[in-house]
């Protein structure tokens, strides 16, 4: 590994540690992280006579989507307003290191919250994991993908977090309904299947179902490749947007 890559990885990790201290360990953020899956679970479970096992993958999908993509889009415009983002931009590191540092915070937060949700599901509902290793890997990959989604939106040159959240929710909320979370993909009509195939959340949910229930609609390879490609696309578009707006 070249010296440059190591330098940038170290800088990215410094940014992640700083973000964890400033944003992720705030009581409000932690409370949001813990309460969010609980309320999601209740809204899923109440009034539906479904076994807990079939609800957990969807719950984890939503937890990962929202926890990974929520803080970056708030932190970046806020830092732009107080000019601390410029401190990162003026440091002798690559822009990729800044993005990676920011994304990693979202990944770790999302992992922490989803693992709490899985632990609670195991303790209180007796849910076991069919493939814990695949599930853990899927959690990391999906968290990275959605964290980068949030950061891609944060590259719009605004100093107001509300502007970014509005745009982001315009995408995140429809994703909830077209990704086979409430209704499994295999039972959707053809047109809805087509639409759902464009959502990275569909593939994340498919992986989580495999990890928890042992069932899969697409294939492990397809799910992993789509998530990786989506993460790469969000990173690429984010960097292009920054370049365009900063010039």
């Amino acid at each position: 590994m070249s010296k440059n890559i190591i330098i940038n990885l170290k800088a990215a990790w410094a940014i992640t540690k700083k973000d964890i201290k400033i944003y992720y360990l705030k009581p409000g953020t932690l409370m949001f992280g813990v309460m969010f899956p609980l309320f999601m679970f209740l809204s899923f479970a109440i009034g539906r006579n479904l076994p807990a096992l079939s609800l957990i993958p969807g719950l984890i999908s939503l937890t990962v989507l929202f926890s990974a993509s929520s803080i970056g889009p708030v932190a970046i415009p806020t830092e732009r307003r107080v000019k601390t983002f410029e401190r990162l931009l003026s440091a002798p590191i690559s822009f990729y290191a800044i993005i990676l540092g920011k994304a990693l915070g979202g990944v770790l937060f999302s992992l922490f919250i989803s693992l709490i949700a899985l632990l609670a599901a195991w303790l209180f509902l007796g849910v076991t994991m069919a493939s814990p290793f695949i599930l853990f890997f899927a959690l990391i990959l999906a968290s990275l993908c959605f964290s980068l989604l949030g950061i891609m939106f944060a590259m719009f040159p605004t100093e107001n977090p509300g502007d970014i959240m509005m745009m982001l929710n315009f995408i995140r909320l429809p994703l909830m309904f077209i990704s086979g979370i409430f209704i499994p993909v295999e039972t959707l009509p053809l047109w809805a299947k087509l639409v759902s195939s464009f959502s990275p959340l569909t593939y994340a949910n498919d992986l989580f179902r495999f990890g928890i229930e042992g069932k899969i609609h697409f294939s492990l390879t397809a799910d992993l490749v789509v998530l990786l490609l989506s993460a790469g696309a969000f990173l690429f578009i984010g960097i292009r947007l920054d370049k365009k707006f900063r010039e």
Partner: protein
Amino acid sequence: MAINKQNPKAIEVLGLTKEFGQLVAVDDISFQVEKGEVFGFLGPNGAGKTTTIRILTGLTKPTKGKVKIFDYDIEKETIEAKKQMGIVPESSNIYDDLSAWENLIFTADLYQIEKNQAEKKAQELLKTFGLFNRKNDKAKSFSRGMKRRLAIAMGLINNPRLLFLDEPTSGLDVESSLIIKKIISSLSQRKITIFLTTHDIEEASRSCDRVAIINHGKIAAIDTPENLKRTIQSVQSIEAVFNKTVSWQEISSLEKFPFVNKIQKLGDKYKLFTDNPEKTLSVLWNFSLKNKLRITSLNTLGPNLEEVFIKLTKDK
């Protein structure tokens, strides 16, 4: 002006232009800053100061032109060029939720400074800037002056060869302002190049080896503060105090001389603006003899940099 490869300057700017659509924010400017020089960059709001600094620090790309920092091209060798600099923007961009210590160590991490070295340097800077006793307090509990001191300390954590200081003492309390001025002076003695933007013209006059005045995106003047002052001789003046009160009618009679441009009464002093101090002194002497007055105090004053600034930015 050609860029000299043999003896690289701290900053070399050649034909720098930045356009935002139809607006030309920086219009074909060129200048050089020598190693160890304190270089003042003055201009009214909207003159192109901030855009120029953003280009020099690699935050914005120019439309045209070249910038070299210690011979590193800011566009092609951005990381190496950035390693040479410390940047202290006008808004003290520190992390309010981190302590002074954490702010410094985080900045050191961004500059890949080894842990032991970073801790040693952070300790030294906190002491220099009078913040050591508050090192574990979150920056949000700091006064504006303390935040500014911390921001400058963060700008120095990587031992930069070139420090960009944007309005370092603007709106600060006397204590912080004095500490910062002392530090600027000690940095210049240590041959650290300082690129200083300020609205405080007297500060620029006191601290800078050379000053550039930018207006409407163009460099209106670039010279030493004293040379700039000499460019507008018409605002030289003589201040005199007499042993007795002089009536306005009597003293204003001196305005009949073509080289006496204006007379002002300032308390017990009379200020005669002139473009010929020598002749004015002579008529003032004759005036005192004729009116049986004794001159108890006499000062000849050159134009201050503020007057130069106003004249140059108005003329352009």
